[in-house]
C-alpha cells in the first residue's frame, strides 16, 4: 500500500483552492461597461479622455461591482461677442439668419447684434478711444489703414493662415487688403470694381463689332461714333464708365490711380511718366468731345442714356436684362426715349505700364483690441463670409461682389454676363497697399489739380509738380507721426 496520506500542506492547499473557488462563486461578476458621460470640465482640460471607475450597481437582483470607463468630452466654454450690423432691415435679417445657424452649430456661442448704420470715423474713433466699440464692425479699407497703424485693431493674418481660409478669397482681393508688413487688419467681406458699359445699338450703327478691349480700340470707336447731341435730353452716349460718389472722386480719377497705389511707397512719391500720359489721354477724350460734361457726382441720378453706374449699384434695375427683372427691361423712371440694353465688359487699362488698379472699394470687418474673443469672432466671420448660403448676402441685399471666389459662394446673379465682367475685372486687379496719409491727399489736395489739368488750365507735368510740392510736407508729417 503506497498510500500516501494527505500531508497537511496538501490539505491546506486544497482547502485554499476550494475556498477560493467557493468564494469566487459567491462574488458578483465584474463587468466592464463603457459609459460615455459628458462633464463640464474646466478650461484646462480640453482633451477628451477616458477614466476607469468602479461603481456598485443593482442588476438582476444581484449586487455587482462594475468597472466603468468614462469618456469625458469637454464641452466648449461659453463664448460671447457683439457685432455691428447696418441698420437696414434686409441686412439685419440676413445677418440674423447667419447668426442663428452658427449658433445652432455652436451652442456655446452667443452673438449680440448691435444695430448701427455703418459707422463713420467720428463714430469709430470715440468707440475705440473709450473701449465701447462692438467686438467687430464693418468698415472700409482705408479705415483699417488708419486704425491698424495706431495698433488698436487686431491683425487677422495669422488666424486666416491657421484656419487655412486664405485661398477662399480672390488672390487680388486678399493681397489688396494686405498692409505693408503682411498685416490684415481688415477681413475682406465684399468689394466692388469697374466695368465698361457699352450701348450695343449705337456700336452696331457705327460699325463697331465688339466693345473695345484696349485704349486704341476705344479711341477708334469714339471716332467712329457720332458726336453726342449737345442737348442732354437728346444725347446718347455709347460708353459709360463707373463713377464714384463724392466730392473728391470722379471716374477718371480712379482710372488713373487709387488710394495707396504705386505712386507712393510709404516714403516718397514715385510718380511715373505713366501718370502724365494717363492725364493726357483723358484730356484727349474731353477735347475731342467724346466725353460729356462732368456730372454732379454726389447727387447721382441714373441718366439712362449715359451708362454711368452709381458706385455700389451694379445692376441698373430694368435696363439690363437679368434675373433681377425676369430678363425684361423695366424703366425705373419714365423716359422719353428707348432704353438700351447695355453690355458690360471688363474695363481696359489706360496705359500699359499702369496696372489695373480697379478694386474700387474694399469693405470688411475689423476687430478692436477691446474684443476678448478675437479668435472666436474670427471663426464666425469666416463662416459668415464663406458659407455658401450666408455668403450670398453680399450679392443681395448688399449689392456688392463677394470677396470670396465664385466657387465658394455662388449666386445666380454671378453667372450673368454683367457680374462675370466684374468678377473678371476683380481677378486681374493689382493689389495695392494703403497708407493713412493717402486719404488726405486723395480727398483734399489732388483732385483739384487733376481737374485743372483735365480742363487744360495746367499741363499734366505742372499738375504733377504741384501735387508733389503740396503733398510732400503732408507725407513728411504723416511719416513722422507713425
Amino acid at each position, binding site marked *: 500500500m503506497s498510500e500516501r496520506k494527505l500531508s497537511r500542506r496538501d490539505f491546506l492547499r486544497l482547502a485554499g483552492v476550494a475556498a477560493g473557488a467557493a468564494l469566487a462563486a459567491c462574488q458578483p461578476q465584474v463587468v466592464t461597461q463603457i459609459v460615455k458621460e459628458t462633464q463640464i470640465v474646466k478650461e484646462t482640460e480640453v482633451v477628451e479622455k477616458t477614466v476607469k471607475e468602479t461603481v456598485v450597481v443593482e442588476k438582476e437582483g444581484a449586487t455587482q461591482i462594475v468597472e466603468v470607463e468614462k469618456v469625458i468630452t469637454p464641452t466648449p466654454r461659453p463664448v460671447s461677442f457683439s457685432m455691428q450690423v447696418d441698420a437696414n432691415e434686409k441686412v439685419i435679417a440676413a445677418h440674423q439668419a447667419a447668426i442663428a445657424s452658427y449658433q445652432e452649430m455652436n451652442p456655446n456661442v452667443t452673438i449680440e447684434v448691435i444695430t448701427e448704420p455703418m459707422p463713420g470715423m*467720428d463714430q469709430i474713433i470715440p468707440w475705440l478711444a473709450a473701449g465701447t466699440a462692438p467686438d467687430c464692425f464693418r468698415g472700409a479699407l482705408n479705415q483699417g489703414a*488708419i486704425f491698424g497703424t*495706431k495698433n488698436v485693431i487686431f491683425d487677422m493674418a495669422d488666424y486666416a493662415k491657421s484656419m487655412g481660409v486664405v485661398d477662399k478669397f480672390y488672390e487680388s482681393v486678399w493681397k489688396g487688403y494686405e498692409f505693408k508688413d503682411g498685416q490684415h487688419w481688415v477681413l475682406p467681406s465684399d468689394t466692388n470694381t469697374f466695368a465698361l458699359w457699352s450701348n450695343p445699338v449705337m456700336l452696331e450703327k457705327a460699325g463697331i463689332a465688339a466693345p473695345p478691349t484696349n485704349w486704341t480700340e476705344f479711341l477708334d470707336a469714339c471716332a467712329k461714333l457720332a458726336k453726342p447731341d449737345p442737348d*442732354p435730353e437728346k444725347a446718347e452716349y455709347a460708353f459709360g464708365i463707373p463713377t464714384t460718389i463724392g*466730392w473728391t472722386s470722379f471716374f477718371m480719377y480712379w482710372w488713373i490711380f487709387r488710394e495707396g497705389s504705386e505712386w507712393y511707397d510709404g516714403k516718397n512719391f514715385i510718380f511715373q511718366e505713366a501718370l502724365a500720359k494717363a492725364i493726357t489721354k483723358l484730356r484727349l477724350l474731353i477735347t475731342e468731345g467724346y466725353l460729356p460734361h462732368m*456730372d454732379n457726382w454726389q447727387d447721382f441720378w441714373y441718366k439712362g442714356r449715359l451708362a454711368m453706374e452709381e458706385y455700389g449699384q451694379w445692376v441698373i434695375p430694368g435696363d439690363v436684362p437679368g434675373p433681377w427683372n425676369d430678363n425684361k427691361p423695366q424703366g425705373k423712371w419714365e423716359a422719353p426715349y428707348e432704353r438700351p440694353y447695355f453690355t458690360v465688359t471688363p474695363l481696359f487699362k489706360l496705359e500699359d505700364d499702369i496696372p489695373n488698379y480697379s478694386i474700387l472699394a474694399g469693405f470688411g470687418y475689423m476687430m478692436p483690441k477691446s474684443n476678448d474673443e478675437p479668435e472666436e469672432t474670427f471663426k464666425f466671420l469666416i463662416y459668415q463670409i464663406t458659407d455658401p448660403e450666408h455668403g450670398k448676402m453680399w450679392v443681395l441685399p448688399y449689392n456688392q461682389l463677394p470677396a470670396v471666389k465664385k466657387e465658394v459662394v455662388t449666386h445666380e446673379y454671378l453667372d450673368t454676363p454683367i457680374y462675370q465682367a466684374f468678377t473678371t475685372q476683380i481677378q486681374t486687379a493689382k493689389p495695392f497697399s494703403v497708407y493713412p496719409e493717402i*486719404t488726405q491727399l486723395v480727398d*483734399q489736395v489732388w483732385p483739384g489739380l487733376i481737374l485743372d489739368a483735365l480742363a487744360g488750365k495746367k499741363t499734366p507735368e505742372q499738375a504733377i509738380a504741384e501735387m508733389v510740392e503740396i503733398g510732400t510736407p*503732408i507725407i513728411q508729417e504723416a511719416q513722422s*507721426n507713425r
Partner: protein
Amino acid sequence: MSVIRGTQSNKKRVEIRKKTLWRSIWKERFTYLIIAPAFLSYLIFFFYPIGFAFVTSFTRFDAFQIQALPNIFDNYHRAIVRDPLAKTSLLNVFKYVVITLGVGQSCALILALALNSLKRGTAFYRTVYYFPMITSVVTIATIFRWLFGSDPSAPINTILRLLFDMEPIRWLWESKLVIPIIAVIAIWCGLGFNTIIWMAGLKAIPPEYYEVARIDGASNWRQFWSITLPLLKPVMLFQVVMGFIGGMKEFGLPFVLTQGGPAGASTTPVLLVYQYGFQNLQMGYASALAFLLAFLLIIASLVQFRIYGKSEAYD
C-alpha cells in the same frame, strides 16, 4: 515814528479788507449758489475738455495715446509754417467772412431800411425772412446742393439757361465758386436775423433828428450819412464782431454741403480741425489749430473794438 505807525495801519487795513472780503462773500452766498450750476457745468463740460485739448495740443495725441513731441511747440510750428492746408483754409474762411459781412450785412441793412419805411405788413415780411434760420443745416444743405447741381437739369442751371442761354456751371465743383456760393447761402440764411437787428437799431434813432435835418434842408442821402449811419454804430459793431467771429468759425455748411469742397477749396479752419482730428487721427495737431484760430479771433476782436473806440460792449 510815523513810519512804524504807517506800517501798522497798513497791516490793519489789509486785515480789514480781508475780513470785509470774506464777509461780502458770505453775504452773497445765495448768489454764488445760484451761479454755481452754470459754472459747474462749464467747468465740467467745457473747461475740462478744452483744457485737455489745450494740453494735448503740445503733444502727439492720436485719440488713443499721448506721446511727447520732440519740441512741444511743434504742432504750432507746423500749423503756422509747414502746413499748406492751414493757410488755404484761413484764406478760404477769410474770403467767406468778407462776403458775408460786406454783402450780407449791407443787404440786411437795406432791407431793414425798406421794412422800416413800410406802413404796414412789416411783421409779415419779417416772418418770411426769418424762415431759413429755423431750419437745420442739413435741410438747407440738401436743398442747395440740389439747387446748385452741376448738370444742366439742375434748377439754377436751368433758370440760367432759359433766361440767359448760359452753359451749365459746375457750381460746387469749381474751386473759385464754392466759397462765394457758400457765402450766398449763409447770407440767405441769416437775412432775417440780421434784418431784425438792423431794424431794432434803426428804431432806436429818435425821429426828431430827422425832423430837424429835413427842416434844415438836408437831402435823404445826407440824412442817411450824417444821422443814420453814425447812430447805428453800436449795432454795426455788434454785427461786425459777432459776424466775424461766427463766420471764422463756420463749420456746418461746408461740412454738410461740400465736405471741404473740391480738393480743399471750401475747407474752413474748423472743418480742417475736424478732419485732422477725426479723419487723420492727429488730434494734438487739430487742437493746436483750434487754439491758434481762437487766438486769432481774440486779437481780431480786440482790434475791432479799438477801431470803434469802445471797450467791451457788454456792460
